[in-house]
């Protein structure tokens, strides 16, 4: 072996040795979550405590997340799917099972979040924030009570209604008025719900899933069926002007979760992050920025009174709630029905 070859060999061995060392100082966590759903203060706090840098990549819909996840473009350590997406991911074996031993703070999660159909044992996911889809009313313009989908979609409110631009949501509301659950989606039930929606949609002025509060604050609409977070922001912005009620026929309860995808490189760091977020002092920071329903009961104890009093964040009473299940291929039929009816009713 010549001297140069010997040197080269030593250099490569050294390089390999360095590469094999656990990169404690330069450790990174790839977080793939909804835009503006994880406060920077939470990420900074995590980095300060653990030394792990967080790369926060974002998306604005579950399907966007799936598109990048499924394509294998990058490996993510933590993702933030909604409940029906968790179900699909688990079915396709795309999630790593969680090691509960590494998640001591999991006990802070309220009992009602266990035994949910999408992940009964919380084996694959940890609830992050929960919300509902309900009726918001500008009470300075509408005095009478609006407590059900049927109350909303009356011809006297024609052109004054805002709803989410979401096929699955709207179809589930129609199904609820027929006494069917949101996952009782079949070709027959879609046919049954068609005339119901065909009567509703011409009354709608605005479809908006991104920022339905805009139309309500503008005064262009007087009532609507929107995300609870949007309603909570409205109530914070103009207290006393807006009310939030969960429809009598049944409402959608969505749960956004944290989970670890199959290709995760840094599983240990991912668990540390999950446990960190489950701490009440961290969780309350999230609540302060995003007034959804916090599934962490210990964190709720730390919230200020007016946050807990916000009916959109913490709806009173015992409403009829249901999560969404994965409906597989029928999602396309749901979308087609909605597209068709929207096109016919609009302009």
């Amino acid at each position, binding site marked *: 072996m010549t001297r140069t070859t010997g040197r080269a060999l030593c250099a490569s061995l050294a390089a390999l040795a360095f590469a094999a060392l656990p990169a404690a100082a330069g450790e990174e966590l*790839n977080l793939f979550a*909804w*835009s*503006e*759903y994880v406060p*920077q203060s939470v990420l900074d706090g995590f980095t300060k405590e653990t030394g792990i840098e967080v*790369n*926060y*990549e*974002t*998306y*604005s819909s579950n399907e*966007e997340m799936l*598109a*990048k996840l499924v*394509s*294998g*473009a*990058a490996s993510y350590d933590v993702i933030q799917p909604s409940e029906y997406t968790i179900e699909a991911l688990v079915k396709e074996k795309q999630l790593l099972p969680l090691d509960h031993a590494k998640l001591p703070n999991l006990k802070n999660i309220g009992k009602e979040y266990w035994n949910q159909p999408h992940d009964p044992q919380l084996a694959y996911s940890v609830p992050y924030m929960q919300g509902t889809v309900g009726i918001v009313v500008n009470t300075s313009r509408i005095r009478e009570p609006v407590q059900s989908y049927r109350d909303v979609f009356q011809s006297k409110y024609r052109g004054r209604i805002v709803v989410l631009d979401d096929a699955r949501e709207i179809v589930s509301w129609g199904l609820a008025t027929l006494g069917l659950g949101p996952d009782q989606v079949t070709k027959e039930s879609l046919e049954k719900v068609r005339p119901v929606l065909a009567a509703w949609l011409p009354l709608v002025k605005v479809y908006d899933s*991104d*920022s339905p*509060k*805009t139309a309500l*604050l*503008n005064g262009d609409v007087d009532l609507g069926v929107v995300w609870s*977070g949007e309603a909570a*922001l409205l109530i914070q*912005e103009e207290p006393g002007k807006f009310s939030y009620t969960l429809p009598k026929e049944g409402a959608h309860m969505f749960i956004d979760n944290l989970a670890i995808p199959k290709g995760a490189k840094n599983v240990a760091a991912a668990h540390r992050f999950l446990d960190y977020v489950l701490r009440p002092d961290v969780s309350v920071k999230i609540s302060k*920025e*995003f007034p959804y329903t916090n599934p962490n009961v210990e964190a709720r104890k730390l919230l200020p009174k007016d946050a807990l009093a916000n009916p959109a964040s913490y709806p009173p009473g015992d409403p009829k709630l249901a999560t969404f299940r994965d409906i597989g291929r029928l999602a396309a039929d749901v979308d087609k029905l909605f597209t068709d009816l929207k096109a016919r009713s609009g302009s």
Partner: protein
Amino acid sequence: MQLARRLLATWTGFVFLFFYLPIAVLVLYSFNASRLNIVWTGFTFEWYARLLEDRVLVRTLENSLIVASVTTLLSVVLGTAGAWLLHRYRYRGGALLDTLIFLPMIVPEVILGVSLLILFVTIGLQLGYTTIVISHVTFCFPFAMAAVQARLAGLDPALEEAALDLGATPPQAFAKVLVPYLMPAILSGALMSFTLSLDELIVTYFTASAGTRTLPLEIFGRVKKGLDPSLNAISTVFVLFTALAVFAIEALRRRNP
């Protein structure tokens, strides 16, 4: 003729009013006291102050500017070259190439984004500045090419022949005669590319990585929480800055013609 000129000026004035009306509103609302920024509640400088602390927003603006500048440069080069070569020479398959180049304009952004993503993953190209620039150039340079093509149509070939007769080499003829002639079209193409790249959203989503977020991605991401006035503020700052830069350049040019 004077009347015609006056009429045109008035018309142009109205169109510019149309262009700048939402910009005026945008600037005004950058001083809006309300965080949700939907109704006006009061006057404040708070959001401009916040800009100084919002490292994320400023960094995304930097990223957007870098990407847009590189995209514009490449688009202008490719677009001008393409327009000129296809005009000058009868290539076999030239018409096909011409059509192919304009395809990305018709392909819906989401399809372009997904298919480029899959392409990059397949060839193992990591997402980042390179992939963003490639995707931006792909749909920007047809605009530059169209602008130059319009200028080339009806170009008197005698121009170039004269230059060559006088002893210029073809590259010299290109640089000294054609490029100056094409300058308005090149500038138009550059302006269009820059504008398109700066505001590009969907394709960028699919081809960017965590470290290379652009401003539109950041702004769209904040819709859910509410487009607070700091977003208006950064737009205002940017527009003011470019307007000042443009005037400065023009003033300098006038001083040294």
